[in-house]
């Protein structure tokens, strides 16, 4: 018999019986109910005959899942001596749904080189792209070329800052600020 992956046409709803546990192993978005595998979400059934696994591919927008190595986007809401707090708004892969959780970036995880004070890297209101180190507690890092501030505004006049060399420059008041800038600064790419 040929072993293959099959996707069924029919839409399943939460609680719909899919098959018994003897036939397949429950995969994502399913749960075990008295020997039967049921769907826990609105979606379509994917049967994997190779792994004998059943997944439900969601048709709904599922809540974002933040795990290790997830890329997140948010706003700096607080600066302390040794860390910054980021209010995570979006998670990569779940762009249409807001996450709204808080994570911290420790000063040692901002960049590879030494940094004297945290305000040399971030300021309150900066929009930062970061990567998740651990989920409980939620710790983040920007130790990569494409991670860091992707948009910032002048604390004096509110103008959007422009990238100038290694720093950021305000075109209106000509002040230069030091930040941990991402390669994608001002580019709008997630």
């Amino acid at each position, binding site marked *: 018999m040929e072993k293959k992956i099959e996707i069924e046409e029919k*839409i399943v*709803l939460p*609680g719909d019986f899919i098959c018994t546990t003897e036939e397949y192993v429950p995969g994502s978005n399913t749960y075990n109910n008295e020997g039967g595998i049921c769907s*826990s*979400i*609105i979606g379509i059934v994917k049967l994997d005959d190779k792994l004998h696994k059943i997944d439900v591919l969601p048709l709904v927008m599922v809540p974002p899942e933040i795990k290790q190595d997830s890329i997140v986007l948010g706003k700096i809401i607080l600066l302390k001596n040794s860390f910054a707090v980021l209010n995570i708004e979006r998670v990569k892969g779940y762009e249409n749904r807001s996450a709204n*959780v808080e994570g911290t970036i420790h000063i040692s995880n901002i960049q590879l080189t030494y940094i004297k004070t945290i305000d040399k890297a971030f300021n309150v209101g900066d929009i930062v792209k970061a990567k998740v180190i651990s989920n409980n507690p939620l710790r983040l890092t920007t130790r990569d070329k494409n991670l860091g501030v992707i948009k910032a505004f002048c604390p004096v006049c509110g103008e959007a800052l422009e990238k100038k060399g290694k720093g950021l420059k305000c075109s209106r008041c000509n002040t230069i600020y030091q930040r941990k800038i991402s390669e994608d600064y001002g580019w709008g790419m997630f």
Partner: protein
Amino acid sequence: MEIDEKPERFIVDGLRLDGRKKDEIRPIKMEAGVMNRADGSCYIEWGNNKIIAAVYGPREVHPRHLQETYRAILRYRYNMASFAVDERRRPGPDRRSIEISKVSREAIEPVLMLEQYPRSSIDVFVEVLQADAGTRAAGITAASVALADAGIPMRNLVSAISVGKVDGEVVLDLNKIEDNFGDADMPVAMIVESGEVTLLQMDGIFTKNEFIEAMELAKRGCSQIYDIQRDCLISKYKKLDSD
């Protein structure tokens, strides 16, 4: 239908005042995903009831001390608009709506897999725009569809309906006159596929046999509601799937 006094008889020639049979439910219109800013939502028109339910989350819990380490918390707010009833209602939560919020939350909670989202909250808002008896049942029905629309993992959908007694007979899905002047009113919420009852309240008096009959009727009513909930969700996602 404007009747302020108790009618002489509720059932004439086997038909109720609004022309329904004893085991007939009012017409229901349900639509999922009606609100842009909510993660999931549902609008329901059940007879003259008009209710909108919105779901937000899982999201961070504020105030922080309410959060639980190993599971999400469910918050349910049932609120009736000041214009929802004939005489203007004082806006804001009152004794009645606080109670309904609590029992409705407990009716929905058993189907949610809250343990998958630790330290977060799932917020359900149920706004009654027009009330005509059976709003808590309609609210639970709509909230359950809204939660499924929000993509929150659930074991099943919850369906709810009310049964009551008028003229000494057990009837399904009371309307306003029957509710105000009838002898008993019993909202029931259940998980239709497993037959588990998640909400059972009673106002008035049923005899033992009447209670058994009422539960049977409620079971049949809930399975009709369940079919409507399924149709509502499938029609929405079939459209999305084919696009």
